Structure formats: structure tokens, C-alpha cells
């Protein structure tokens, strides 16, 4: 019944459109008038015609009412942004989808279209976007099951849902690269493809980071750390948070016990480079850390709190600028310029605007404020600051409380809050300022409590470090592909190691003889020196005879001694994978036991030589879990602690060698030495359970060897696998030894080392 009434109410014009649409869905009927109204406001009359024509088409595709409804609602906006020709592209793509096994993707496609359009802005871009989708769908649809395109693309609907997010952060080109990456690596794994395209998997996020525009925190972490240390004598963990996903509530920088949180990326803004924006943010927080005190806030209203914050922010910046005058310019470029005239606007809460005016006026000597109370407060602020130089958080609080009292307005309580040009986005959220006395049902304190608990969990395990991995098929690195977890190796019984040393005391004696020949401080005599430490009598007499007999004497009658110095840093990387538990051929001992003996003797040897030396062990259980255990650090001696770790050596899981070498290399790289050597002791080829292609990790490890060489690190493999010849050369070139008789390892390892470093 009601249908009839509504139709009856339609104007002739609307009725004509309705008839063109020729549609029986009551849901469409219900929204139709509203949609036409919007379309007429946004589109040309021809545009409205096309809009209706295409809607009719979509309504008749036989895929239900939903595509039609979304089209009716979204299409006018999209066409108004990028032009009306897009309406046909939308229709065509919907047609394409509807005749295809991927017809379900039509809904997310249409749903996300308006948001996508807002990021892309132009017809060409949107057109490209659709091409990218087609391409993706082509590849991911066909490849699931051979020849028949029977299965829809697993990733496409998810991709469409994420598209607005992705495009807010990425250029279209970056988007394309991101999509291509997912297609390339997850074509054969529907589940992983889904994880990737809904931005769940770590590499999805990592690749996205790589494709982002702007200045990435991770790329500048060291510079920021140095900034904080150098200029502020401060340091802390710098932890990035994602700024791409939260649009409603933009997360703010902050710091707490776990570190300083910064956005993962800053675009250049108002002529300020990304790195300078980071510096401004850090400077502001460093200033708080230097000069702010905590305050008890239980008795303050929310308005009073924001006022206290503003005064305190201004105070620490005032002090920071005194220290580093260049900061004023930086802060000024980033601080919004609030519009005082808007104070007149009725019915909105102006608390934020008044405070922004105050803050700007303090920062900017050229900024004029008419508002008397604000002017007065600015004046008081400067009087306070010029008194003894630093003032205090508490003094700011009293200025702030009197400011709130004086400027209070009825409208402050209005639910509609004026926000324009009041957000100072380089300032942190000031959570460090507050102390709550009343524990209890306060949400924030409960939250704090939770935070603390999480912190405890995190302290026990270091966060993983991510390393890339080389894919030889595509000649391409997979970024942040492998997660390496480092931990101190558990301790065992020191006696085990001391017994090994006893057992091999004869060997140790023999080694000692070679050692003495290698030891630094070995002097070499250099003869024929014009200046030297001693007269070389033979030469001197010869010269004297020459002189007396009237011929030209050789003046180089001295000799000197030179130290044959060693400046070597050695990193020993131990394969601790499952296969070491096997008995060595022709021996009653396992490979692990023999390795343990060999490493013990090597450690003893190197300790004698005094070279810089570290030991790490590794194994892996897929790329998500490569474990690296710290057995001996460069700064540690071969003492009981280290011995007890060696004693507890254990073998399990697989051998993802490249990642372990890259990880070990970052320690070796930090060492100062003329020569850097990485010894890899392994019983087999690199492998892991999540890699089917056994060449992949061989190539990756070879790539790691090349990377290390570029860092000045010489890698050398000691391989216990009798079949090693098949692959070890591909990885290490000529830099390897295969030990066939594993029994002899304890003797051989130190000798190999000494030969290498002679």
C-alpha cells in the first residue's frame, strides 16, 4: 500500500526516471528519491541520464538488489569528483564482474569506490585503478585450479575492502606494487593470499611500508636517536605506530615506560621536511622529559586539564627555544594559525580555539590577539617565565586554572566542539603529566594497569628483528621476510666444558705451539733503516769501509723491530638444527657433542690469541621463527658463564642460515677490526620446513655471503656434511672446508682458524 502512495507522490520528472530504471525492488524504491536529489545536485542533466541508464543495467544483471542500491548511493559522488565518463567505466566493470565467477566482488568494489575516488582524484587514476583490479583478478582467478576459471579470486574482495586504506597511504603506483607482490607470492596459497590482502600478514604491512611516501621512522631511527642524544642528552626506545589506519581518531605521539611513540611516517608538511617534523616532535617530548613534573589531576575538570596542558606545552617549548633558537621557526611552521574571528560563532564550544590562540600567541611574537583575557594570560606567562628562567609545571597549572575561570563561557559545554586549526600535531598527548590518586573505576587507570602487565611480558622476550630474504626466482628481495628472535642461551653445567678441555689437554699443548707463533707482539727485524732502534753492526762496518775507501756509503745502518700485529674480530655461528643430534659416522658421539668439543677448543684458542670473538647459535622453525642464541659476546671472556652456555648447547628444528648470518653480521659489523671473519659451522645445507624449493635458501645464503663481503666481512664455512660438495661451493665459493671425518673436528677447527688468520 505504502508503495503506491509514495509513487503517487513522485513528481512527473522523478517518475520518468523511476520508469527508466524499470525496477521492482522495493528497497530501491525507498531510497530512489533521495538518490535522484543528490544526483541532480551533483551531475549535469546528461549525467543524471547516464546515471539512471547504468543503474537500470546494473539492476538487471541478476545479482540481486544490493549492487544497485550501492551504485545508486555512491555513483553521484564518484562522478562529481572525477567526471561523468567514469559512470560508464563503473558499469562496464560491474558487467565484467557479474559475468564472471567473481561477481561477489561487485559489492565491495562499489562500496569502496567513493573512498577510493577521494584518494585518487582523477578519472585517469581511477581508470588505472580498475585496470589494476582486473589484472589482479585475472591472475588470482585462473591459477587456483588449472584451466577452468571456476574459483573466484580469494583475495579480491578483501583487497577491495582494504583499498581505501591502502590508497590513503600509497600512491597508485605503490598500490600496484603492493598488489603485484601479493599476487606473485601467494598465488598458490588461498589462505595466505587472504591474509596478505586483508593486511594481516607481516609482509603485507612491510611491503606497504616500503611503498609508502614520506619519511619513514624506521629509515631514520638512528638519526633520531642521535638527535635525542646529541641535543637533549636523552635516549629511549623509539617505537613507531601506524598512522595509516586510524582516520577517526588520529593517534598522537606519546611516551611511557616502554619508549617514545612516533608515527611510522611523516609526509612533508607546510614546507617542513618529514625528518624535521620528527625532530620537532622529539624536541617537544624531550623538553617535557627535561622540565615537566607530574601533577595530581583528580580534582581538575577536563577543561582545566587541557588548559594546564596548553600552558605546560608552551612552557617547555619556551625553554626548548631558549636552548635551541632554531626550534622557534620549526614550531611556528607546524603550529596552526587559529582564526580569532571564529570566536564569534554561536553554539559551539570554543575551549580549544581559545587555547590554540593562547598557544600561538606565546610562540609567535608577531601574532596579535584581540581577546583581552587571552592577551592578559600571555603576558602573565612571560612574566612568570622571565622570573627565574624555568618556572614549573605547578606554576603553569595555576595560570591555567585562572585562565579557565576567566574565559569560561556558557557554550563551552556545547557538544559541538570547534576544532579547526586547533590541533598541534607535533605535540604529544601529555599522558606523562598526570597522576591519579583515586585508583578504581577510572577507565584510564585500569588501562594503565593493563599496560603494565603487557610490559612485563614483553620484557622477557626481545622483539624480533626482521631480515629480508633473497628470492632467486624473481631476483628480488622479499622485505622483512624473516623474523629473528634473539635470546641468551640457557646455562648448563660448566664442568662439561672443563672436562672437554681436560680431555684434550694434549691437543691443547700442540695448539699452544702454533699459537705462540701467531701471537701478536711477535717482533720482526727490519734491516737497512736510516733511522732505527739499533745499529746494525754488519751493515755499519760495511758502510764505514765504503766511507773510508772513498765510495758512497749506505746510510741505512740501523735496524728496527716491528710488531706483527693482529687486529681480527671473529664471529662463530653455530648451526643448532635437529640433524646435529645424529651420531657422527664412525663415532660414538653425536655431531652436536663433537661440535661442542670443537667450539670449546676453538674458544680456548682464540682466547689465548686475544682476538675479538663472539659465538652465536641458530635454528629455525619457518621464517616466522628463526632463533638466534647468544652464547658469547665480543665483550665477554671465555669464562664460566660462557662455558655454561656452551655446555647447554642443544639441537632442534631447521637451518635458515642466511637470516642467522645477517643477524650475526650486525654484531660483527659494529666491531672495530682490520679483519672480520664469520665462521659458520654446519652439518648440512640451508633448509626450512616452510620452503619447498631446496635451492631457495641456498641462493639466499649465497646472497648473504655477498652482502657480508660488501660489509667487509669474510665468511667461511666449516661443513660436516659429506655431501656438502654438491652445494657448499654455490654458497661460499672457495671459502669453505668440508670435514669428512667429524671425529677430527675438535682438532681441526682451531687449526683451520689459525691457518685462516695467519
Amino acid at each position, binding site marked *: 500500500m505504502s508503495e503506491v502512495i509514495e509513487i503517487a507522490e513522485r513528481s512527473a520528472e522523478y517518475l520518468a526516471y523511476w520508469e527508466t530504471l524499470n525496477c521492482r525492488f522495493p528497497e530501491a524504491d525507498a531510497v530512489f528519491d533521495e538518490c535522484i536529489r543528490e544526483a541532480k545536485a551533483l551531475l549535469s542533466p546528461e549525467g543524471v541520464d547516464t546515471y539512471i541508464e547504468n543503474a537500470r543495467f546494473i539492476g538487471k544483471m541478476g545479482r540481486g538488489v544490493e549492487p544497485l542500491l550501492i551504485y545508486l548511493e555512491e555513483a553521484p559522488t564518484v562522478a562529481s569528483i572525477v567526471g561523468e565518463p567514469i559512470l560508464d567505466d563503473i558499469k562496464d566493470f560491474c558487467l565484467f564482474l557479474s559475468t564472471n565467477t567473481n561477481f561477489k566482488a561487485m559489492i565491495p568494489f562499489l562500496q569502496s569506490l567513493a573512498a577510493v575516488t577521494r584518494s585518487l582524484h582523477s578519472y585517469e587514476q581511477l581508470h588505472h585503478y580498475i585496470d589494476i583490479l582486473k589484472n589482479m583478478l585475472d591472475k588470482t582467478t585462473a591459477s587456483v585450479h588449472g584451466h577452468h576459471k571456476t574459483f573466484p579470486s580469494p583475495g579480491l574482495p578483501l583487497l577491495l575492502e582494504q583499498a581505501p586504506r591502502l590508497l590513503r597511504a600509497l600512491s597508485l603506483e605503490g598500490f600496484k606494487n603492493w598488489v603485484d607482490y601479493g599476487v606473485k607470492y601467494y598465488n598458490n596459497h588461498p589462505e595466505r593470499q587472504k591474509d596478505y590482502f586483508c593486511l594481516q600478514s607481516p609482509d603485507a604491512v612491510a611491503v606497504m611500508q616500503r611503498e609508502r611516501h614520506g619519511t619513514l621512522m624506521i629509515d631514520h631511527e*638512528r*638519526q633520531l*636517536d*642521535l*638527535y635525542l*642524544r*646529541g*641535543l637533549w*642528552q636523552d635516549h629511549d626506545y623509539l617505537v613507531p605506530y601506524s598512522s595509516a589506519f586510524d582516520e577517526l581518531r588520529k593517534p598522537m605521539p606519546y611516551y611511557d615506560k616502554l619508549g617514545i611513540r612516533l608515527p611510522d611516517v611523516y609526509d612533508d608538511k607546510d614546507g617542513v621536511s618529514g625528518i624535521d617534523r620528527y*625532530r620537532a616532535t622529539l624536541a617537544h617530548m624531550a623538553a617535557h622529559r627535561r622540565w615537566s613534573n607530574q601533577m595530581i589531576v583528580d580534582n581538575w575538570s577536563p577543561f582545566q586539564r587541557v588548559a594546564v596542558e596548553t600552558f605546560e606545552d608552551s612552557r617547555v617549548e619556551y625553554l626548548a627555544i631558549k*636552548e*635551541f*633558537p*632554531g*626550534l*622557534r*621557526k*620549526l614550531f611556528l611552521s607546524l603550529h596552526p594559525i587559529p582564526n580569532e574571528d571564529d570566536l564569534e560563532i554561536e553554539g559551539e564550544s570554543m575551549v580549544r580555539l581559545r587555547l590554540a590562540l593562547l598557544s600561538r600567541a606565546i610562540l609567535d611574537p608577531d601574532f596579535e590577539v584581540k581577546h583581552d583575557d587571552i592577551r592578559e594570560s600571555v603576558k602573565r606567562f612571560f612574566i612568570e617565565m622571565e622570573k627565574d628562567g624555568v618556572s614549573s609545571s605547578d606554576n603553569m597549572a595555576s595560570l591555567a586554572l585562572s585562565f579557565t575561570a576567566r574565559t569560561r563561557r556558557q557554550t563551552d559545554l556545547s557538544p559541538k566542539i570547534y576544532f579547526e586549526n586547533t590541533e598541534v600535531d607535533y605535540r604529544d598527548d601529555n599522558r606523562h603529566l598526570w597522576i591519579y590518586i583515586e585508583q578504581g573505576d577510572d577507565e584510564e587507570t585500569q588501562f594503565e594497569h593493563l599496560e603494565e602487565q603487557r610490559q612485563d611480558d614483553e620484557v622477557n622476550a626481545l622483539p624480533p628483528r626482521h631480515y629480508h630474504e633473497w628470492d632467486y626466482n624473481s631476483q628480488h628481495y622479499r622485505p622483512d621476510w624473516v623474523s629473528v628472535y634473539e635470546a641468551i642461551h640457557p646455562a648448563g653445567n660448566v664442568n662439561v666444558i672443563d672436562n672437554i678441555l681436560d680431555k684434550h689437554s694434549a691437543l691443547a699443548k700442540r695448539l699452544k705451539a702454533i699459537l705462540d707463533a701467531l701471537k*701478536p707482539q711477535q717482533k720482526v727485524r727490519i734491516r737497512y733503516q736510516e*733511522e*732505527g*732502534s*739499533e*745499529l746494525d753492526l754488519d751493515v*755499519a762496518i760495511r*758502510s*764505514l769501509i765504503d*766511507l773510508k775507501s772513498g765510495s758512497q*756509503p749506505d*746510510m741505512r*745502518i*740501523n735496524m*728496527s*723491530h716491528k*710488531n706483527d700485529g693482529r687486529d681480527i674480530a671473529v664471529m662463530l655461528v653455530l648451526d643448532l638444527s635437529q640433524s646435529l643430534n645424529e651420531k657422527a659416522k664412525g663415532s660414538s658421539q653425536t655431531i652436536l657433542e663433537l661440535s661442542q668439543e670443537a667450539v670449546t677448543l676453538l674458544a680456548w684458542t682464540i682466547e689465548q690469541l*686475544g682476538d675479538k670473538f663472539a659465538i652465536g647459535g641458530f635454528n629455525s622453525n619457518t621464517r616466522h621463527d628463526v632463533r638466534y642464541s647468544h652464547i658469547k659476546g665480543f665483550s665477554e671472556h671465555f669464562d664460566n658463564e660462557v662455558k655454561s652456555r656452551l655446555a647447554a648447547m642443544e639441537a632442534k628444528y631447521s637451518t635458515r642460515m642466511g637470516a642467522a648470518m645477517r643477524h650475526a653480521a650486525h654484531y660483527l659489523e659494529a666491531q*672495530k677490526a682490520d679483519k672480520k671473519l664469520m665462521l659458520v659451522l654446519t652439518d648440512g645445507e640451508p633448509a626450512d620446513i616452510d620452503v619447498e624449493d631446496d635451492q631457495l635458501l641456498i641462493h639466499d645464503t649465497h646472497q648473504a655471503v655477498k652482502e657480508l663481503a660488501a660489509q667487509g666481512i669474510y665468511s667461511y664455512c666449516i661443513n660436516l656434511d659429506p655431501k656438502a660438495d654438491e652445494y657448499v661451493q654455490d654458497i661460499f665459493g672457495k671459502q669453505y672446508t668440508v670435514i669428512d671425518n667429524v671425529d677430527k673436528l675438535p682438532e681441526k677447527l682451531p687449526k683451520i682458524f689459525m691457518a685462516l688468520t695467519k
Partner: protein
Amino acid sequence: MSNEAQYTIKEEPFYQAQGDEIELYEAAYAARLPVMVKGPTGCGKSRFIEYMAWKLGKPLITVACNEDMTASDLVGRYLLDANGTRWLDGPLTVAARIGAICYLDEIVEARQDTTVVIHPLTDHRRTLPLDKKGELLDAHEDFQLVISYNPGYQSLMKDLKQSTKQRFTGFEFDYPSEAVETAIVEKETGIDHELASKLVKIGAAARNLKGHGLDEGISTRLLTYAATLIKGGIEPKAACRMALVRPITDDADIRVTLDHAIETIFA
């Protein structure tokens, strides 16, 4: 004696005391105790010794040590001449003969077998055996031995032997406080107070990075170089980059950070 005159300091060197080091040194000298001055490069160690030599009116013989230096470089050696060989005293021997203060700069750079030749001079014997010449030299009563030593910069390998260390009284120097350092830069170069204090701030920023990619911070010496350049008309920021940043680092991140420090301090 002409030798002595050659080593005498005629004009008063400018030295800004950081504490009571002048009095302490005078006491050490009065007892002829050997002195070790420790501290980072360019913090005023050499200047201090120079000043003390002037104040005490004693000649000063300075030897810059290096790893190629041998005992003969200190003690002396035979040279060839028309009549055969001729002995030539090394600087340490000269100092012991004429009663000078002998300053061995950066002693750790010298090899340990070189360092031991100073041992007999540093205990009650106060003698210097010239083995090759067959002479046992008794040190002049004014003679004093001073060594300098920069603990921050050497590797473990190069540390001084305990038996050497324990023969000296020690003066520990560091970069002066901001106020003192500003005064030094001002007086040494004649630039104004404000400029000097900005230079000192940049120095402080670099010193905070020690151990994070910098082996040594910016020394007082470099600060005076920068000030001298500015005094000579070079634009301050350019002078700072040239005198303070470029010499101390090749590390891009550190350079960027220090360049930024210059920008933000000289705004």
C-alpha cells in the same frame, strides 16, 4: 746553555685553570714526582704543561709518541760521521741532562718495550742507563717526567702497563665546563661571548654522541679553530661545519645530526 734556552718558554701561555690543578702540579714538581695527565684529545693537557713549565721557569721538551717510536728515539743512537760513529742524545736524555720537564705526549702510542726505558727515571734512582753507550746518566735535579694519556681512545691492547702507571701521580682532565670552555674560546680567539657559548653548545652535542658512532667528541681545540675562522670573516655556520663536523666524522647520520645542531643553535 744554548740548549736550555732553546727549550725555555719565553711568553706566558694562556691557560684557564679548571680547578686547583696549578697548585697540585707545583706540589708534584716540588717533590719531583712524575706526572701523568689523562684526558681526551684537545682538552688542554699540552697547554697546561706548557703553562706550568713557564710558571716554574723550566725548559720543556715535548715528544709526540707514535707506534713506530723506539727506545732509541727517546734515549739516543749512534750516527755515522767521518770519524766513524757518533752518539746523539735523544730528547729524553737531553731533558735529563739539562734539567727540563720532559713531556711524552700520547705515551700509549709507543710500544711497551719503549715505554719501559722511562722506568728508572721515575723512581728514586732518577737515572737513565744509556746501554749502547755504556753510560749511566744521573738526572739533573730539575728534571721531571710528564706523560699524557688519552684513556678513551685506545683499545684494550694499548693500555699502559700497571707497572708503568703506578709510577706517576695523575691529573685527570676532561673537557671544561660550559662556562670555562666559553671563557677559553673567548680569550683564546677574541670572539664575543654569545658566539663562544654557541660553539660550546655544539661541542656539547657532539660529546653526547661519544660511543654512538663518535670515538671522540669535538675538542676544545676544534672549537678554537671554528672561532678563529669566524673571527676571520667566515660565516659562522659554514665555519662550524668545516671546523667542528667534517673533521670528526664520516658517518652520515652523525653529520646530519650535528649539522642540524648547528642550524638550530645558530638560528
